[in-house]
């Protein structure tokens, strides 16, 4: 694909990013604030620029959409669906099955305020649901957290690559802010990765043994072995695939830990305080699972203090605390209900943490 530069909403950028990554099939169910994703993909269906894009359908429910994605993925296709928080709850069933069936596909959650219907403002309150395996059973999703429109465009490619590499569903956990934000975005020149699915995809048992894509195993020992194999895979993912951004952390006395849109705001605070010669930095997890615990632990061992800022009442902070250990000071600033913290709020919280001289 030729390189191009566009001015897009985050959701639109994500849709184009998926097309550039060679999306084959999209199954939609509308929900605010993620609907620009299916709308963009409906509009682009048939565009000769995307020869791999074979199928678009608006399903009758979130459940139907995600189970169609599951069926398409079993056939070896690059399939995707997007939703927002209330819809993400409904996706959990298929995600649990797909993790057990080792099926690669992409789900997007443009997180809005909850619980329940909540409202259409941004939150990061689906962090637990996304990173801890929100459906039944013991499993993980690979979770990416874009922080800009540019990253919304890049995440589908990374998500598909990781999903197919490890045969596990991947989640892009955005927020209403990043989804609705409009910015310049550049699409680099790239060719979709070629994934070999011949060992497991259900394409018809011609000249081979049947492929059984299944999450059922009535023999306890065999189930133990199957899940143990998946755990080993998760350990490999944790060891090799964590992504993060460190910004001015080296000499920092205090480090803000934040992801998604909050990290954008926090970066502004860091820049502002640095101008006043105050040593603060930013640590931004890009993969929420695997959580980049080792680099964070390293920062803690250098005696830094932390301020965790999230659009919820404290979810990622549990992973931050586990990473840095009990010796480190970790303070928290949360906003919810669709509100986002201002730079001043983050700055005053840093001052109260006493790492910033008054």
């Amino acid at each position, binding site marked *: 694909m030729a390189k191009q530069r566009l001015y897009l909403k985050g959701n639109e950028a994500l849709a184009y990013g998926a097309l550039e990554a060679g999306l*084959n*099939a999209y*199954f939609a169910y509308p929900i605010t604030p993620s609907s620009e994703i299916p709308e963009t993909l409906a509009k682009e269906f048939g565009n000769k620029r995307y020869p791999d894009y*074979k*199928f678009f*359908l608006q*399903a*009758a*429910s979130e*459940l*139907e959409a995600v*189970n*169609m*994605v*599951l*069926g*398409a*993925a*079993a*056939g*070896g*296709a690059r*399939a995707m669906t997007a939703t927002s928080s209330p819809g993400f709850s409904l996706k959990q*069933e*298929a995600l649990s*099955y797909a993790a057990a*069936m080792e099926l690669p596909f992409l789900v997007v959650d443009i997180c809005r305020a909850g619980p329940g219907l909540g409202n259409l403002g941004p939150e990061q309150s689906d962090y637990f649901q996304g990173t801890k395996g929100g459906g039944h059973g013991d499993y993980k999703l690979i979770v990416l957290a874009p922080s800009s429109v540019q990253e919304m465009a890049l995440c589908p490619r990374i998500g598909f690559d990781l999903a197919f590499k490890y045969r596990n569903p991947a989640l892009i956990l955005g927020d209403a802010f990043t989804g609705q934000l409009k910015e310049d975005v550049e699409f680099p020149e790239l060719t979709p990765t070629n994934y070999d699915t011949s060992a497991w995809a*259900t*394409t*018809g*048992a*011609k*000249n081979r043994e*049947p*492929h*059984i*894509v*299944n*999450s*059922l195993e009535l023999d306890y020992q065999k189930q133990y072995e199957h899940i143990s194999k998946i755990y080993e895979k998760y350990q490999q993912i944790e060891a090799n695939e964590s992504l993060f951004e460190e910004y001015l952390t080296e000499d920092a006395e205090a480090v803000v830990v934040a992801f998604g849109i909050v990290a954008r705001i926090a970066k502004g605070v860091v820049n502002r305080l640095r101008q006043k010669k105050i040593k603060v930095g930013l640590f931004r997890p890009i993969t929420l699972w695997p959580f980049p615990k080792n680099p964070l632990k390293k920062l803690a061992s250098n005696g830094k203090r932390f301020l965790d800022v999230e659009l919820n009442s404290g979810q990622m902070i549990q992973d931050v605390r586990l990473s840095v250990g009990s010796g480190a000071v970790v303070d928290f600033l949360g906003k919810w209900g669709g509100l986002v913290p201002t730079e001043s709020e983050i700055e005053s919280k840093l001052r109260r943490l006493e790492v910033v001289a008054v």
Partner: protein
Amino acid sequence: MSQLALKVKLGKIKSLTDNPTHYCAGCEHGTLTRLIGSTMDELGIREKTVMIDSVGCSVLAYNYINCDHIVAAHGRAPAVAAGLKRVRPELMVFTVQGDGDAASIGLLELIYAAQRSTPITVFLVNNGIYGMTGGQMAPTTLAGQVTTTTPYGRDPALTGLELDVSKLLGEIEGAAYVKRASLVVTELESQRGKVYTIKNLLDAKKSVENAFKVQALGGFAFVEFLSTCSINWKMSVLEAKRFVQDHTIKKFPLGVYRDTFGVEKK
């Protein structure tokens, strides 16, 4: 009768494995498995067929039918089938659902597969009960029928009347083939005493063939098969077969509810 019996081909079916099934004695799931296997052989489609196993007694079908399988969540088989078929249109995709799976938890997925003319094949085994979970009420349980969750008989005032899925799908324009057949042999009185006719089974076989042919023509095909569940009905196998003949078939009459391509007449 002996003439009819001769028409059923015996011998090794390539589309079936050698595994013995887990189905109970007298259960028609085994019958349907064999009819599907022999039809797959005859149509030469084994190597391009993917079965979606649904939750219920047919969930272990991957042990018996020798083709690719995806095991779906409860009720979601038509959605999984549709997802696969849309990205691999060259495949023959089918599922065998139970009445709990298709008529209760998965009714939306089934109706929309039909409404969109999704080219897949759905077989519904209607035995009027949740078999695998141990005999609870299904939407198809007859009024007054005793199950573990209707121990005093199904009360229509509370749980409504039997849901007729074939009639429902027959009203949907997108469906190309909707038929209710039976996998239950019929008892007849003759001069020599009681005899059993397999006319229903021969028609069921024809229905399986038609349902695959309709998919090949690009249509949505659905066949409901009346069946028994003697274990959970707390009857002998013979009593259960008679129950279908005397009661079930009156609520769920056999027939073709939709046949867009006219395959029944061919």
